[in-house]
């Protein structure tokens, strides 16, 4: 049998599998995962438009006036100087200053002002200005930071991770559960050809779904920004950044896909490898440099235009993900991930050669 014949077989297998991965009802949740951030950015666009209208409707102050506010000022003085706020909110809460002491009630007041571009959030405690938060309602830099966070924490660590878990585990383990795997094993194709065909199908599907999702979300992220700002951004780094995010998504699919495909062949229960990998990827930043390179996330994050942001006060469950890896140069990152993937696929090929039909066990 020639290489050409085997390549055609790989493509035939991939084509048949692709139809299943793209259009089966079981895959719809993956679309949901990939497109959910898009929905959120659309919601943000609507929210920003709404806020602009409501803030402008009451009072727009000059930027200089907004910048003149200082901490420690009394609320009455601020109101007199800046005029009616766009929003005025009062509330109180109880707080215990020290353990064992009585709780005290604290009165808070928040005033919002708007200068046409920026929004000031002034927080008064017992009538004295404690915190000043001035920020643009929306700006390209803020949006990029936000997208970067979404990409690192949502796409890479959640959506692509669990999406690939679903897609690639289904290729062999799912067929075993459906009692249909023998259909493929009885074809006149080498087992490694079958593996390659199925992996290709999974990779194409995952890359298209998550690559498109990430790119569309990138576009949606720019919606609320002023069009002039967007034009300047597109004249600059926008396309390169989008490409790098898409490449990172593709490489994440490549790496996680190989891991989950191999896991689907080597173990019966996907929870165990999934949890182990999740822990490994999260703890990766704390490991020695050599071990760090045995992680998919390490290489993928190196391709992103910006490193993963680290925030304080993140909930316990999410905190598990926060383990930024030191960056590697992009050619090395691509090479490293491809080598890692090749090694895992080699292991998977050995496993698929030993694979036996045992439907009763599941």
């Amino acid at each position: 049998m020639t290489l050409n014949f085997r390549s055609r077989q790989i493509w035939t297998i991939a084509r048949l599998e692709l139809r299943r991965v793209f259009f089966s009802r079981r895959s719809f949740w993956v679309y949901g995962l990939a497109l959910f951030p898009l929905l959120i950015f659309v919601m943000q666009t609507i929210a920003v438009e709404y806020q602009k209208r409501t803030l402008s409707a009451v009072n727009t102050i000059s930027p200089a006036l907004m910048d003149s506010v200082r901490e420690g000022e009394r609320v009455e003085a601020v109101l007199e100087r800046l005029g009616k706020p766009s929003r005025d909110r009062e509330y109180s809460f109880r707080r215990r200053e020290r353990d064992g002491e009585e709780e005290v009630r604290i009165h808070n007041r928040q005033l919002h002002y708007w200068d046409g571009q920026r929004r000031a959030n002034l927080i008064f405690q017992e009538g004295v200005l404690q915190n000043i938060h001035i920020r643009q309602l929306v700006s390209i830099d803020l949006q990029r930071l936000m997208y970067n966070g979404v990409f690192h924490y949502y796409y890479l660590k959640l959506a692509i991770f669990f999406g690939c878990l679903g897609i690639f585990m289904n290729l062999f383990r799912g067929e075993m559960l459906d009692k249909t795997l023998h259909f493929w094993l009885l074809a006149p194709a080498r087992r490694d050809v079958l593996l390659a065909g199925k992996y290709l199908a999974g990779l194409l599907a995952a890359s298209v779904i998550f690559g498109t999702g990430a790119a569309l979300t990138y576009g949606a992220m720019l919606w609320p920004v002023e069009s002039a700002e967007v034009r300047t951004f597109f004249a600059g780094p926008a396309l390169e950044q989008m490409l790098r995010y898409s490449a990172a998504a593709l490489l994440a699919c490549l790496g996680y896909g190989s891991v989950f495909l191999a896991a689907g062949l080597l173990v019966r229960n996907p929870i165990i490898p999934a949890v182990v990998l999740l822990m490994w990827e999260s703890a990766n930043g704390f490991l020695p440099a050599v071990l760090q390179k045995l992680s998919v996330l390490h290489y993928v994050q190196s391709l992103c235009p910006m490193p993963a942001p680290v925030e304080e006060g993140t909930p316990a469950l999410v905190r598990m993900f926060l383990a930024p890896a030191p960056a590697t140069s992009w050619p090395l990152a691509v090479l490293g991930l491809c080598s890692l993937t090749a090694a895992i696929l080699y292991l998977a090929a050995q496993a698929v050669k030993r694979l036996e039909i045992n439907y009763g066990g599941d």
Partner: protein
Amino acid sequence: MSAPEIVFDEVSKFYGEVLGVNRVSLRIPPGITSLVGPNGSGKTTLMNLMTGLVHPDRGSITVRGLSPRDPERLMRLTGYATQYDAAPRGATGFDFVATSLLLWGYEPREARQRAAEALERVGLTEAGHRKVAAYSKGMRQRVRLAQAVAHDPEVLVLDEPLNGLDPVVRAETIALFRDFAARGRHVLLSSHVLQEVDVISDQVVLIANGMVVAEGRIRNVRDEIEEHPSQFLIRCSGASRVASLLFERDHVSEIKVVDDRQGLLVMTRDRNEFAAALNAIALAGHTIESVLPADENVDALYEYLIGAQR
């Protein structure tokens, strides 16, 4: 040219601590061969072993000279209708057969044509465009058979292929097997419906508890089991008298007079002695119209060989 036999050489397969098959040695020539045994005896394991779906722990298998570990070549000449529905979710019968032909390497147009022909052979042309999920049990059997024969294999392996078929379709299916066998091909099927394999098989392999307890042509198998009493139906006049003469012989263990009193059902432990005794009775002037073996079917062998082990 590949060797035209399927050879199992001291093959053993264990599923953990559970025995699949143990030290099976077989040489299966072309023709229709039936694997017969009770549920869990190892029939499907043997079929899975020879098609590479499971691998032996010991021993070796060749199918017309090819190893089951080489699916690329083996499955080109083998078609296997398993007991499981292999059709992908939502696939029609036609899609199912055509898809498998694409995997065989046929061009889409050729695959569609062959799929249509295969479905026609099993009488599913009209139902071909309905989803397999909506098929009856018998239709599923037939679509699996269509998939197995669509690429015109040299070796056809069928796991309980006659289950759930109505009499007409069963007859057509058996004719299909015979057609394959007549062209020098292997048709290997399993069944526990003994009567149906009795009449269609060229050879039979009896399995119990993972071991082959008998193999060969039904008559040859019978000959191997000399200890087993044989039963004959004798049509004769003066049945009572013939019965009393036969009872004088040591090898005759039981005689029943049939209801019309024109015949006897005789159980003997020695066929040769029995033949000599009948000769002597005939020469003594008694009319013996016919002598027929009464238990030369798989059922009787099955009961004798593996009944005790069930």
